[in-house]
């Protein structure tokens, strides 16, 4: 209860309060294109009272200079093979809004329009939204890690072997175990989404897409934990390795420092982490609001589903031997 629900809510509120200067979310966004012409339909989230002012630049260098000087909060580069975001320092919310816009606009840029068209999508992301998403993902990974580690202790304590002597079949037992862990994660995410939405007015985006992404995120957390728990070390060392790994993934995934404000390599690394993909997906949904499509979360879904499949498969394979006991098998 503490790790699963109370801590994430408290931390979200505390961190959001610390960055409340961004609460008004009046943002100046630079935009430039890699080609000769700036050609994109740019979907910009925001309500009338929280406008995003769009400022075009001729090239990336000019956009970067504007970001560095503080003339704009962030800039997006569209039209190339991969969109880019330029942020100066720790600006998580502008960075995430810019990134969401950049990825959505990249699709349109490929269609080669002749001018920039501003479309208000009705999305909204504030520090509170960003940190609610970030803390939800972070504490989901901790909760699932605890559950998977507990399952591993059951395996090592030969509980599975004893369960195999009941009428239940091994695949039913494994399905029950993984199902319960999955359900635990979903409940945590669901409660945090509901509480943050109802009590703090956090915007999570389109409910259906949020639900689909939540399923993939829980699966990925289960997959990562299942991989980490198979590291062949002593149990006490495994706990340490797991916690360090969780923090590392959180850092690399941008849950503390958004990679858009760091050198490009961090942005690339973040996209290889399930944490980064989850954050990317959820913040895109929050930032784009009604403009979100299934394509908005396609990449996070693909990456996290793959991690989930690999990790859970590995966990299931390693559990098979735990169903057997005997003088030779047990030792």
């Amino acid at each position, binding site marked *: 209860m503490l790790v699963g629900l109370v801590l994430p809510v408290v931390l979200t509120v505390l961190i959001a309060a610390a960055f409340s200067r961004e609460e008004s979310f009046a943002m100046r966004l630079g935009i430039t294109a890699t080609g000769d012409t700036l050609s994109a339909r740019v979907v910009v989230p925001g309500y009338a009272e929280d406008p995003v002012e769009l400022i075009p630049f001729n090239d990336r260098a000019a956009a970067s200079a504007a970001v560095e000087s503080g003339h704009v909060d962030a800039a997006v580069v569209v039209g190339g093979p991969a969109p880019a975001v330029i942020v100066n320092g720790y600006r998580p919310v502008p960075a995430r809004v810019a990134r969401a816009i950049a990825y959505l606009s990249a699709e349109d840029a490929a269609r080669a329009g002749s001018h920039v068209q501003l479309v208000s999508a009705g999305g909204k992301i504030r520090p509170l939204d960003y940190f609610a998403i970030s803390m939800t993902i972070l504490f989901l990974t901790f909760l699932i890690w605890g559950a998977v580690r507990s399952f591993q202790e059951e395996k090592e*304590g*030969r*509980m599975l*072997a*004893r*369960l*195999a*002597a*009941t*009428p*239940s*079949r091994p695949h039913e037992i494994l399905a029950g175990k993984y199902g319960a862990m999955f359900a635990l994660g979903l409940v945590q995410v669901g409660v945090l989404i509901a509480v943050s939405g109802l009590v703090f007015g956090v915007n999570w985006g389109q409910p259906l897409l949020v639900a689909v992404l939540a399923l993939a995120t829980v699966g990925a957390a289960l997959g990562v934990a299942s991989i980490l728990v198979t590291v062949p070390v002593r149990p006490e060392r495994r706990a340490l390795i797991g916690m360090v790994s969780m923090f590392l993934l959180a850092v690399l995934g941008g849950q503390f420092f958004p990679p858009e404000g760091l050198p490009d390599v961090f942005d690339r690394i973040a996209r290889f982490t399930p944490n980064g993909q989850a954050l990317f997906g959820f913040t895109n949904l929050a930032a784009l609001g009604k403009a979100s499509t299934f394509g908005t979360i396609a990449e996070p879904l693909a990456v996290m589903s793959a991690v989930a499949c690999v990790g859970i498969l590995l966990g299931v394979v390693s559990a098979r031997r735990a*169903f*057997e*006991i*005997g*003088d*030779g*098998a*047990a030792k």
Partner: protein
Amino acid sequence: MGAVLEARGLVKAFGARRAVDEVDIAVEAGEVVGLLGPNGAGKTTTISMIAGVLRPDSGTVHVDGLDIRSGPAARARLGLVTQWLTLYHDISGRENLEFWGRMHDVPRKRLRAAVDRALADVGLHDRADDRVDTYSGGMQRRLNIAVALMHDPALLVLDEPCVGVDPQSRNAIFELVEARRDGGVAVLYTTHYMEEAERLCDRVGIIDAGRVIEEGAPAELIARLAGGTSLRIRVTDPAEHEKAVKVLAGIKGLRGVTTGDGAVCVRSKGSDPHIAAVVAELLDAGITPSSIDLDTPSLEDVFLELTGKALRD
């Protein structure tokens, strides 16, 4: 009465080592059969195959006529008590039993009654709602046994259930096993403690290096294999030891006369220790015995005779 457990020709090898080699075991309803053996003899491997959690390389196991590997119905007839604890320590004893009851397919409407009965059977009713990690070692052992009783199995398999428990808990476990046996349950019991086997078991099988090397009723094995009663005779004058040896060596029905530790030791060939003859012959020879100690052979003597005294790891 037909055998509730019928295991035939069980073989299991781990690599080149045959952990279990052509083991046959049969247990009838209302019977307790002990499986005795030193560490690594193959007891747990045998039990694992009987419980259906380890596939034998060859051989069959039938419980109540059903092949144990045929599916849930066969396993539902078996209650397994492992030598390690299969309890969740952060929930109560009652919650543990509810969980295991559900795993054993105890119907929901009978679950509460089954839990209460199992708790009463192991004397934990008053601590039922306490977390298991507040239980003593003996209480945890008893709860571990209750886990296997939830579904009223026809066959109860206990793998060293008394390891590390105090005499009171051990006695409670004995009474529980005896009560289930008297209720018609077939019991297969492994242990290192020979006094447990002597008290509980109608028959025992002694297993070593994966093979059952002897089997029979404890009294029969003792009579057949332990070699009679030992007498330890002290005489008033230790200088007469050599003379006493000669006298005792001449008595029919005795064998193996030795001296040492201030006494003369001799063993009877059968169950009769021939005390009257020993005293009479010694007195006739002018030797006055100051004390005679009788050492009745036990199952442990049989066990050590068959498996040797070398340490096992």
